[in-house]
């Protein structure tokens, strides 16, 4: 099933539509959650929860709007909730994450951003979401998001420069 068809079929759909949504958005959402949580296994849990929540609340999804943006919104709140609970229950610092799929340099740089900033940068740069989609995901105006994104981008560039000499050299050449 195509993305646009699914935007109309998900609300009244069942397990077949859920499977189509997982096939279309599962892997990108896993990557998205992984970049927020910096932990592969927690990202797996977050994606599972995202789809279970989406399935349970499918009647509240507005038919014909972007299912992708709705799923990203759920994934985002799930990741933030998970980080908050982890911090509350175990006093784990946000830097205490575990992923062998991110180089140490990049992880260090990403950790200078808040989880919300990591999510925003990732949605914009890798998923190439439009500001209209971002408004739906992050529940904020395009102007606010643009400012937040610029700030996060500057912060991340600075951190990349400090943590990885390759990016520092690129900056010097610029």
């Amino acid at each position, binding site marked *: 099933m195509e993305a646009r068809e699914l935007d109309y079929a998900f609300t009244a759909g069942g397990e077949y539509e859920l499977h189509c949504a997982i096939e279309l958005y599962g*892997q990108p959402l896993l990557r998205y959650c992984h970049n927020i949580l910096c932990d592969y296994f927690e990202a797996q849990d977050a994606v599972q929860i995202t*789809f*279970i929540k989406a399935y349970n609340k499918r009647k509240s999804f507005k038919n014909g709007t972007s299912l992708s943006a709705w799923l990203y919104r759920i994934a985002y709140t799930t990741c933030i909730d998970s980080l908050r609970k982890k911090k509350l229950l175990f006093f784990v610092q946000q830097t205490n994450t575990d992923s062998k799929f991110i180089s140490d340099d990049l992880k260090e*740089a990403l950790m200078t951003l808040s989880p919300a900033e990591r999510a925003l940068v990732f949605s914009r740069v890798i998923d190439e979401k439009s500001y209209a989609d971002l408004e739906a995901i992050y529940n904020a105006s395009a102007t606010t998001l643009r400012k937040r994104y610029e700030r996060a*981008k500057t912060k991340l*560039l600075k951190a*990349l420069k400090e943590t990885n000499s390759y*990016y520092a050299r690129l900056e010097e050449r610029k």
Partner: protein
Amino acid sequence: MNYEYDENIIKNALSTVEIPEYNIIPEVDKKIKEQKSHMNFKRIVAAVLAVCLCLMFSVGLVAAAIPNFKKLLFFVASDIALMLQPVEISSEDNGIKMEVVAAMNDDEMAVIYLTMQDLTGNRIDKTLDIYDYSLTGMHAFNCQIVNYDEITKTATLRMQANGGEKLDGKKVKFRIDSFLSDKLIFDAVETGINLLDIASANVSQTVPLDMNNIPGGGGSLFEEFKEQGIVKVLKADQMKHSLPGIEFMYISNIGYIDGRLHIQTKWVGEGIDDHGYFYFVNTAGDKINISASNIYFGTDESGDTKYGNDYVEYIFDVNNLNLNEIKLMGFFVSNGNYTTGNWEVAFKIQSVGQQKQTDCNIKFDTWTVTSISVSPMGITLTGSGENKEPQSITVSANMTDGSVQTFESVRSFSDNGKVKIKFTSSLPLDVSKVQSVTVDGIEINNKN
């Protein structure tokens, strides 16, 4: 700023993250099926909670009761929140307020959520450790901090007590007499001891110790020492080797006795719960598992051993190790604050739901299970004999829809030949849907 250039740098960096494919569909399908089987149970519990809340409204308690209970619901899992009953009774002493916020229980086990708040100072912090406490009728306890609010200096704790009898509807008393805080942890302490320099102790360098006259000890060699009755330990205070940053203890002697490495430590700090241990790491820095033990004792003026806990002797079986390739490290803990007081509240506890008990006769080597109880909080095996390895028993609940619920945590309690082992899970158990219980492969049908 070159907008696209900057974005490309970030894109290149983020594109280096490659995560493996993950087959999400089976996992999501499984969880959706599981949640369907929990739905009816949740509805019943939610209805019961709604009735409880209505009763609270009717007695005018709600204004005081809801805020703290609500705060608690913020950081406990929703499945647990459904089982919690608000209590909200507090006690204040020594400028510290203790409040039992909520509780849940079945006939054998109770879980209490409580808060401790310092109204006058900074004695409550996130290293809080409740030291001396009790809950009437219960025996085995475990208390851990689940949240600390820096602004209000309030710690929230979860206390689990096991070993109770017919707790439903009982009025219980929860009491705290002392707690520790300002915990200092010294991990991966470099001892600076060269294991190749340690000599064997001859008879004149050892003293006898009566294992029946010591306050305690532990470890895998401890039983062997107990059986020997009289063991040899190192003569006390033959050296003073301090460890970096640690003032509350030092190494007071070290040597080999009968081929085993003995490290004697003297504890000189004022902390009531100062403790620690030594361990070995290999050249890669990984911990090495070896047989080890520790024995607590004291000495009199002539240097002979007596009952006491001024000294702890750590004993290691290092025979199979290449001493060239290992390093002695330490882990030590001390507490800056020891606060005493009298914080006590009494409240009635009501079971979270129905409980079913089935008689059985399952024989293990050293004990026999005579009954199995199933409650929303887990499964309890009750029997007689002696059980030293509750973790070795596997228990699962077979549900009417064909699914199987397993249990992550196990606690055991023994007294006077009576054994109780509780298996709990992070998810409540829907008792009405438990068809049978499997104990180490033996299936026992649940009585309906």
